[in-house]
């Protein structure tokens, strides 16, 4: 497949996922609050961890296993990609209006850590930069989504000859 300019550019600008240690870097007092409140959730293949539009209980960190994110928008079913151990999910709901923007289902048996919203709110109040760390990570996720979709669409349209010259 030919390399598109945008692919090259995106190669240079893709926002890498931050390691968990960096993402959750905060004061010892805040870390103690988050550790004390965290809950472990075990899942079997096919289990839904949460559903789209449900009230969000907090931020989830995948400890083991493979999971998939799915959303329905205006009758269109979207698969938003898979998530694996070490990834943080539902930053948007935890930081935003508190409702899940997609459904998370287990593809294999696995486990997650739940950081409840109440503990996150406490952490944000004690250490405001923590909220910005998480918001920046959400922005990186959107940036990566642009990369995925632009490359996918351009390749598909090029094959079908639908791109228009400016």
């Amino acid at each position, binding site marked *: 497949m030919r390399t598109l300019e945008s692919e090259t550019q995106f190669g240079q600008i893709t926002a890498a996922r931050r390691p968990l240690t960096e993402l959750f870097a905060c004061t010892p007092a805040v870390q103690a609050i988050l550790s004390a409140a965290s809950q472990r959730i075990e899942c079997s293949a096919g289990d839904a961890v949460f559903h789209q539009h449900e009230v969000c209980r907090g931020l989830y960190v995948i400890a083991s296993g493979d999971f998939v994110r799915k959303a329905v928008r205006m009758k269109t079913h979207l698969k938003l990609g898979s998530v694996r151990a070490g990834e943080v999910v539902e930053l948007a709901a935890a930081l935003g209006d508190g409702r899940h923007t997609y459904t998370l289902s287990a593809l294999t048996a696995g486990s997650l850590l739940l950081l409840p919203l109440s503990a996150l709110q406490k952490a944000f109040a004690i250490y405001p930069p923590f909220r910005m760390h998480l*918001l920046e990570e959400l922005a990186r*996720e959107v940036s990566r989504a642009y990369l995925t979709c*632009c490359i996918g669409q351009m390749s598909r349209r090029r094959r079908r000859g639908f*791109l228009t010259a400016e």
Partner: protein
Amino acid sequence: MATFHTHHPPEDCLNCEHRHLRMFCNLTPEALQDFDAVGIMMNHARGARLFSEGDTARNVFIICFGQVKISSTSRDGKTMILKIAGPGDVMGLSAVLANVPHEVTAEAIEPCQVKTIRKQEFIDFLGRHGIASMHAAQSLSSEYLTVFHDAKRLALSGSAAGRLARLLLDWGRSAANGRPDIKFTMALTHEEVANMAGTSRETVTRLLNQFRRDGWITIKGTSVTIVEPAQLERLTA
């Protein structure tokens, strides 16, 4: 899609009559006072480029009125339109917060008023107001779903008629904002609509004429009204 350009443009954020309809700008009085003090209001003519793909992200842009085309360009100069941003949409947010160059190009497709806020000023504003960072998270979440939705529209609809119908329904419902009449202003050319629907300009012109003859839509100038949304829905199935 914009339906607000017949209204008087807001002079400032405090006196904006549309604020309560917009996701990001609907802030608490304290945050709003601060929001009004940051950034500058800028007017852009049709065709003005707000930022280009690969540019360093120095500002965040919030559309007050008008429509902006968000696109990506390939090496051989071909353009792919990702979406049309309208009033209340925040542009450049992901690039500014992720500290990466702009992923896309933003170009006004009609006269626009845009609040432009410098990167650091915007980040500091979010740091001062929890509600603003919450709205920023909602904007990013909406942007995330829109990006994937646009990609899937092309992938899932088998026919050109289905893809065009889905596009018209998306624009109509977005502009209707819950109102029963599904009406929007189509500022794109048929060529650009064809680009978004993954088909040719000729096919778009033929299909729009067919939808109009069948009484499913009406077109007056740039104003499009969807009369029979169920018929268009049927095509997208």
